[in-house]
């Protein structure tokens, strides 16, 4: 074949200019409104029905926890033995416990213990785990070796088992001590996630660029690395909030969590166990409240993860 012969279908073709108008090289598109990464995540979230469902449920639980008296005027600790395991009736829609307490009022008042323990533990775990993970990941070397080994030690102890062992040796139990004990065994997971996330961000070119600007190592960590490494930690915090509530209920159910003077779903489930056959509704309501609350946080964590990391989205 010679160079000059043109095969059929391969003649010199030029598209009419009006079909593909030539644009300026690399012009800035001014049509869309500015949006940050977080703004983009919010736009994603806004469109998900699951997000709104979980937000509404969580808000409801939080309001109930903050001002339970809005929802019931019955004292959850008021016992009338005549009503023991009594059926629902006017003003007492969920019936009565074995001790004759109003199940509805106890379910309402039980929210506070769960929400406080959940929030407190999450905040503690995120702060401690986040700081430890950030230092280990960013400074590396001896810091990493030391902090990672320490967190491995705590990581090796199962959350609930460790909590039971430690908590039974405590003199006084309150929402604060329960949260502290849960956090003590839960922070390594957050630390690991933060460490991995920081390791990934640390080598980005914008970090080198920041150092070349004259920022100190700490300034680079605080201003550039941590904000970019926060996404996965936020996701795990949201999800673990639910698991802390469940863990608190587990401890209370086992009788080693909150003292019986504090109304809690776990304690009520434990107490209702004895009357499961004769009056299942006594168990049902606190258990349902617990499940819905835990589920809401886990659902929220799920949609937040999708919004922050579109790659992880399930198709």
């Amino acid at each position, binding site marked *: 074949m010679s160079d000059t012969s043109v095969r*059929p279908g391969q*003649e010199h073709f*030029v598209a009419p200019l009006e079909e*593909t108008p030539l644009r300026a090289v690399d012009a800035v598109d001014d049509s869309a409104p*500015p949006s940050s990464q977080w703004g983009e995540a919010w736009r994603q979230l806004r469109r998900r029905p699951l997000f709104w469902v979980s937000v509404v449920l969580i808000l409801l639980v939080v309001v109930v926890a903050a001002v339970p008296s809005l929802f019931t005027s019955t004292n959850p600790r008021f016992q009338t033995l005549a009503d023991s395991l009594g059926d629902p009736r006017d003003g007492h829609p969920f019936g009565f416990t074995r001790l004759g307490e109003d199940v509805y009022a106890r379910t309402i008042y039980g929210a506070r213990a769960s929400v406080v323990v959940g929030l407190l533990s999450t905040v503690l775990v995120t702060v401690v785990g986040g700081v430890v993970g950030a230092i280990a990941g960013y400074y590396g070397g001896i810091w990493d070796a030391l902090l990672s080994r320490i967190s491995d030690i705590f990581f090796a102890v199962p959350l609930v088992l460790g909590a039971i062992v430690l908590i039974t040796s405590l003199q006084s139990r309150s929402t604060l001590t329960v949260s502290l004990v849960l956090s003590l065994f839960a922070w390594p997971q957050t630390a690991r996630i933060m460490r991995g996330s920081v390791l990934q961000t640390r080598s980005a070119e*914008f970090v080198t*660029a*920041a150092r*070349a*600007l004259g920022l100190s190592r700490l300034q680079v960590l605080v201003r550039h690395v941590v904000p970019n490494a926060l996404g996965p930690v936020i996701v795990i915090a949201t999800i673990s909030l639910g698991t802390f509530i469940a863990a608190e209920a587990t401890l209370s159910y086992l009788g080693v969590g909150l003292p019986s003077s504090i109304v809690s779903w776990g304690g009520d489930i434990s107490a209702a166990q004895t009357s499961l056959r004769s009056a299942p509704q006594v168990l049902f309501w606190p258990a349902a409240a617990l499940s819905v609350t835990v589920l809401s946080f886990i659902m929220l964590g799920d949609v937040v993860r999708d919004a922050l990391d579109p790659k992880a989205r399930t198709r």
Partner: protein
Amino acid sequence: MSPRDANQPNLSKRPDPAPAGTPLLQVEDLHVDFRSNGRDVHAVRGASLTVHAGQTVAIVGESGSGKSTTAQAVIGLLPGTGRVTSGKVLLDGRDIAHASRREFVALRGSSIGMVPQDPMSNLNPVWTVGFQVREALRANGLDKGVNAKARAAELLKEAGLGDAERRAKQFPHEFSGGMRQRALIAIGLASRPRLLIADEPTSALDVTVQRQILDHLQSLTASLGTAVLLITHDLGLAAERAEHLVVMYKGQVVESGPALEILQRPQHPYTQRLVAAAPSLASRRLESSVVRANVVRQAEHAAVEAHEVAVAESLADLPETEEATPEVIRVENLTKVFTIRGSGARGEKLRAVDDVSFAVRRGTTTAIVGESGSGKSTVAQMVLNLIPVTEGRVLFDGVDITTLDKRQAFDFRRRVQPIFQNPYASLDPTYSIFRVVEEPLRVHGIGDSTSREARVRDLLDKVALPASSMRRFPNELSGGQRQRVAIARALALHPEVVVCDEAVSALDVLVQGQILTLLNDLQAELGLTYLFITHDLAVVRQIADDVVVMQNGKVVEAAPTDRVFEAPQQDYTRALLEAIPGGSIELGA
């Protein structure tokens, strides 16, 4: 069609079919849509092209032009939500645009082969290379028991791998990038397809390796009579390798025809732009609006003043400096040793930079050229004072920067600024463009918020970005725009030297040309000195005054650009020059 004999490498040239015969591949008015955020995005809009048996056809275009999508539609591998909405893909006259999954499985490998772009991720790391070649044979029913192993080794040998039998037992991580690409070519050609789609087959490789691989691919496909559909962003490379060019822009074919004709007489304005911007075809240093000789003189003059001021101010406590020299940076016997694997004395040592010396004249551009692993970026990092020096000195204005204390190092940062390669990673995604550009001013405590905002506006104007982009975030900008933001950030502190580490390598050719022009104009306007790190000699020719060629951590050759290009002294430099794709093609008047 008779089944080809798989055990016998058919190296004799098959007779060309009659010119009047049916083309091997005919794409007619192809439309491909993707669904994104509930909207249809038209990736390919009415593309048509023809490939005859045994012919090499190249699709050229920038990222987002639809060139890869077109090829993926041909082989039925459209990713995600992509689908062919209309048009025909005729293979041997049979329409396969809407072929079923089963039909495509039968076609792939045996009729259409594929060599993917990234040799690093396209081989499965848990299987040996030989196994993966045999897998390609097996998938097409050519796996003949004991013969398969020998056949796989044969195919690897054919693709240019020496010692193929031993190599076949190795894993991908034991292969270099070029060797992996050869293995992928062996897999692509394993079942003797009549059409091989090569999607940017060498864009991840060094130029000299790229040349070897393409040469080999060319002779191999010619002897097998395989037609090649080459997808590339590099017009020079396309023109050098293909008889027929198809230029795509925004999903449409804007021009197609014989390669040389298109290159020499481009008709469509986009093609004209592309030809004009192709760095491999350009032959001269970019000239700015200001005469360059003047610039250098002015810069030297300004430098002497700046030097005096600097000495009087922040650098007053520095060690005694020599007289201001025209040399702003002087690197002396610079060595960097990294410890890899293990630590302390037992660790393996790697001499990334070995006794490197060169000087950078004020107001000029010095390019450090080398392939991956040459140590060029490590030199840049040491000049930027970002990593410690193992041995040797880096003199900035006569002062050794390796001995600066904290305060002096902080002041040094104002005078030398970097621009990095990856526009997608060099800006903090959580920062608005305003904060990105303002940060250096804030860090160095320059001005109040009002004057800083005015300065940011001014800087964005300098890099030709509208002030409205201040409130935007990096993810909203294109690669070229981000790189302009990075330039604005680098210029915020009025630096004397800007270190560009592969600053244009990740950009499309037109955008690359635009950024190079911008850098050149800024140099003229502000009297900047550039240290330009790049693997691309074509870019060097456009921007550099002096060239330092590096190989394996050592300086191979250092000379003014024109001398390096016209009379290279070293074999390695010559090999690099010869490897520039399309460098030998003469352009029409």
